[in-house]
């Protein structure tokens, strides 16, 4: 195998890497917002049972304060952040077969890959968003409320833009991690760059393809960092 052939194979893998990267971001960034909304839900269906918080039995008070939607989302976020992404990819990909004996089509692997990445990253983004939203002074929503903004207007016009600015640094961290995490696709033997590099390396007993792949990841991330810094700077006009 000439160097040129190896390079072209790696580059085609890089295309897949970029595809996984892009699809994951496109879906997980907004999905994270929905997960965040669930995680911050104040819905307490039994609140009405508590007539007087001071003298009511302890269990009734606890029941009144229970927030089931928040609890469910907290639980799933904990699982997604507390177990290896690699394991999650395997579960999404092969779980349907083992659980329901569904026959998996050949294109399923790629879908499973994207679903696994999107769900995992949306959990991380949700927690970043939540921290960002909670760091915004309540006076902002109160000012909006007294000016007559609806809840949706308050969120999209006042809270969200400020949240984006505040969460940009931690989101950048996640995006950079994602570039490297795409290599986990090898567990589902999806032909992205790292999988291909490993295969060539094993077949030809050479380390070169892995080093080249490493270089590609590095350049990819340098570009990501550059773009994110540009975005950050574009929001520097206010504090």
């Amino acid at each position, binding site marked *: 195998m000439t160097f040129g052939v190896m390079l072209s194979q790696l580059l085609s893998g890089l295309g897949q890497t970029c595809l996984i990267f892009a699809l994951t971001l496109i879906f997980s960034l907004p999905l994270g917002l929905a997960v965040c909304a669930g995680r911050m839900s104040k819905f307490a269906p039994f609140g009405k049972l508590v007539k*007087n*918080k*001071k003298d009511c039995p302890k269990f009734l008070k606890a029941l009144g304060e229970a927030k089931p939607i928040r609890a469910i989302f907290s639980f799933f976020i904990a699982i997604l952040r507390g177990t290896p992404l690699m394991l999650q990819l395997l579960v999404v990909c092969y779980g349907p077969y083992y659980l329901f004996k569904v026959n998996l089509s050949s294109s399923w692997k790629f879908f499973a890959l994207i679903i696994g990445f999107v769900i995992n990253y949306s959990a991380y983004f949700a927690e970043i968003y939540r921290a960002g939203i909670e760091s915004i*002074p309540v*006076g*902002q929503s*109160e*000012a*909006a*409320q*007294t*000016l*007559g*903004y609806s809840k949706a*207007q308050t969120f999209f*016009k*006042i809270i969200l*833009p*400020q949240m984006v*600015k505040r969460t940009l640094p931690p989101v950048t961290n996640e995006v950079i991690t994602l570039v490297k995490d795409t290599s986990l696709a090898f567990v589902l033997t999806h032909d992205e760059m790292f999988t291909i590099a490993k295969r060539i390396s094993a077949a030809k007993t050479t380390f070169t393809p892995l080093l080249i792949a490493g270089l590609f990841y590095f350049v990819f991330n340098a570009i990501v960092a550059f773009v994110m810094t540009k975005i950050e700077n574009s929001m520097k*006009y*206010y*504090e």
Partner: protein
Amino acid sequence: MSENNILKIENLRKVFDDELEVLKDISLSVDRGEVVGVIGPSGSGKSTLLRCATLLTDMTCGELSYMGEKIVWNGADGRSVYADKKTLKKARSKFGLVFQNFNLFPHYSVMKNLIDAPVSVLGIEKSKAKEKAAELLEKMGLSDKADAYPCQLSGGQKQRVAIARALAMDPEILFFDEPTSALDPELTGEILKVIRQLAQEKMTMVIVTHEMSFAREVADKIVFMDGGVIVEQGAAKDIIDNPQTERMKRFLTKLGEK
């Protein structure tokens, strides 16, 4: 009820978490053009009163009306019941609130802070809203700051923008919660000047303040609160120069000592 009545609060009680009774039995009526000064020691419930009146905090018991329209009343169980969303939205357009720490929107320019709510809440045409905002900025002495961002302004300028933002909604009544407390003494004067001017223009206002001489000068009526009740209320000069209750006397002496 007189036709000129803007705000009426009746027998307001506020209990936090069913145990901390912060407002005990507050009744307050504000007529058009009236300036009411609310004074009292820290923790007496002044902010909570304003927050209840501006719908930021739910009342526990009692009634609230704006311009004769009831928006909160006592239900069968004696607890406050709120009107439907639409009525509340309409009520919100009747009042404006100026906060101690301004709460300007940092990502909007001064101009956008002033026109965004009129355009997207009241549905006013953008060009009209801009005209009005420019007028307000001129009145506040901030014509050159239309394109600035809040972070580029001094505290006094921020507060003047916040007042302009509230005025841009054309409210019937303005509430102020210690509008000068976050400001250096030199900057306090410029805010008091603006409020004084509004008073001359017969703007209806309720002002929570620790500036006793200012309250005496600008307010028609003073409400003195302590421990969640209105201890004294009446004409500003009577109340401050001739306090009737021990509590009020003590409060004024304490302030004098500072």
